């Protein structure tokens, strides 16, 4: 499972970040790529240009509350390397796993980081380390079957392999 481990810069987000802040209604009917500039455009204008491929989001409680829209897909497409939050909205968590966005819940993690610090996230033992301060915490275990989905890049590659859905040209 080495492929899922991340070490990168941290961006901090508050509690109750909702799906409409990631995909506003006015972006809904655009192509996935065209939707990306709208990510957090109301709450953090310019963030999509500042963040770098592989960066880590560290958030407070209930990240991703709201609708089933593919907000996790868009964060993955944008290049977010991992999402770690005190806890994650259940529907958003499903979408994270099923769209292949590595995500871990870890109570207290938001207090352990300042924005701009470097985090290291392990999907072997589910520890989150603050490289700048040396502190670490262990998050909620991701079950093996979900790790398998994450490692495959989500459910679509699995369904494609089984001939259940067509490949995208």
């Amino acid at each position: 499972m080495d492929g899922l481990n991340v070490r990168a810069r941290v961006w901090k987000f508050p509690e109750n970040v909702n799906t409409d802040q990631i995909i506003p209604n006015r972006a809904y009917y655009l192509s996935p790529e065209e939707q990306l500039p709208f990510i957090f455009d109301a709450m953090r204008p310019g963030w999509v240009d500042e963040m770098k491929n592989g960066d880590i989001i560290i958030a407070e409680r209930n990240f991703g509350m709201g609708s089933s829209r593919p907000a996790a897909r868009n964060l993955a497409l944008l290049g977010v390397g991992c999402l770690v939050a005190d806890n994650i909205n259940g529907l958003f968590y499903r979408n994270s796993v099923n769209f292949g966005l590595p995500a871990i819940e870890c109570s207290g993690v938001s207090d352990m980081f300042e924005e701009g610090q470097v985090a290291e996230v392990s999907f072997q033992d589910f520890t989150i380390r603050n490289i700048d301060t040396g502190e670490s915490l262990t998050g909620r275990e991701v079950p093996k079957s979900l790790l398998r989905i994450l490692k495959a890049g989500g459910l679509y590659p699995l369904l494609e392999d089984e001939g259940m859905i067509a490949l995208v040209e």
Partner: protein
Amino acid sequence: MGMTIIEKILTKAGGVPVKPGDLATVKVDVACLFDNNFMASVWRDVLHVEDPSKVVVVIDHRAPAAHVGSAHAHATARTFVEKFGIEHFHDIGYDQGICHVLMAEHGYARPGGVLLCSDSHTCSAGALNCAARGVGSPDMFYAVCKGETWFRVGETIRYELTGQLPHYAFMKDVFFKIAGEYGGHVSQNVEFGGPALGTLPIDARRTMATMGAELSAEFATFEPDDILFDYVKERTNVPFEPQIPDPDADYLDKREINLSEIRPLVALPDSVVNNSANVQDVAGTRLDQCFVGSCANGTFDDLSSVAQVLAGRRVARGTRFIITPGSQSIYRRALKAGIIEILMDAGAVVTNSTCGACGGGHMGIVGAGDTVITASTRNFKGRMGDPTAKIYMGSSATVAASAVEGAIADPTPYLS
């Protein structure tokens, strides 16, 4: 230790006993696809359907089509339905409606069943004793192709409902009480039961179960009773196995809600969680638009309470009142009962059934700086249109009274 309702349904559907902390893999009884699944940016071409009789297809979010994008999605849905011979198809027309309303109305949601749809308010069918959860699009493709899904099993909070609602208070107000007092329920299930159940029609239970999504609950489920069995048997011959909680079920917490003490409440703008207030606290707030509709409040009982308030009155000048029935069937029933005439005579605009203004999709999108009160599901910033709009939420009766006064108002004097 015994099991809660959800633990029992998931145990039966997966064939393996579950407890909080487990990952359950279960068979899906009903997989509902709706127009957003068929959007060009979301749809994946399905090559295999495990069991077409378990798939329901609904066109509801932008129905009839609001723009070229939605027209394209509807066409993709029709092609899919044709290709796999999907019998349960709700296109624009006689059986049109919001998918969660149709799940109940057409007997797709059956007690003890597992129901999946990639709309967050799928928990609505929890009112019918289902394990019903809003999931993502990939989950839907997986369920349609393979007939199964996964759930993380959470702990359960039991809400014991006692007493009886006063005539001026509604299940929406009960929701505001729970959301205001206890906040979010992330990773937890909520279970409703208790002696007050017998006083609560299915419509009222559906309002509460639907709002479970706003509590961020994994599942929101009601205990089954004779009112439910009669409702379901009127709609389907398919046998079902209801689940009741074990007497020694292990709950994270048990909380009593005395319905007799409920007063009209509202949610203040931007969140319905930890954001409730007495209607009197904000009474007099000027309104540009009022809305009643959605999977939570487009029920017949909602339209009926609005008519009670509006009868012989007019919507205030300068305020728009938009009403969207949850299904065309509810619309027809309200029409025959004389309710639609009362609403229209008062100056309300009654639209066809669709998700409509609730999601800011069409038919009532709110503009910059608008102040709104809505009886629907969600009031995030920008939810119903422009992000500078202020969206309050209330019961349908509170919204109707507010439409009459052109400002947020207590419905109590309007209800006998």
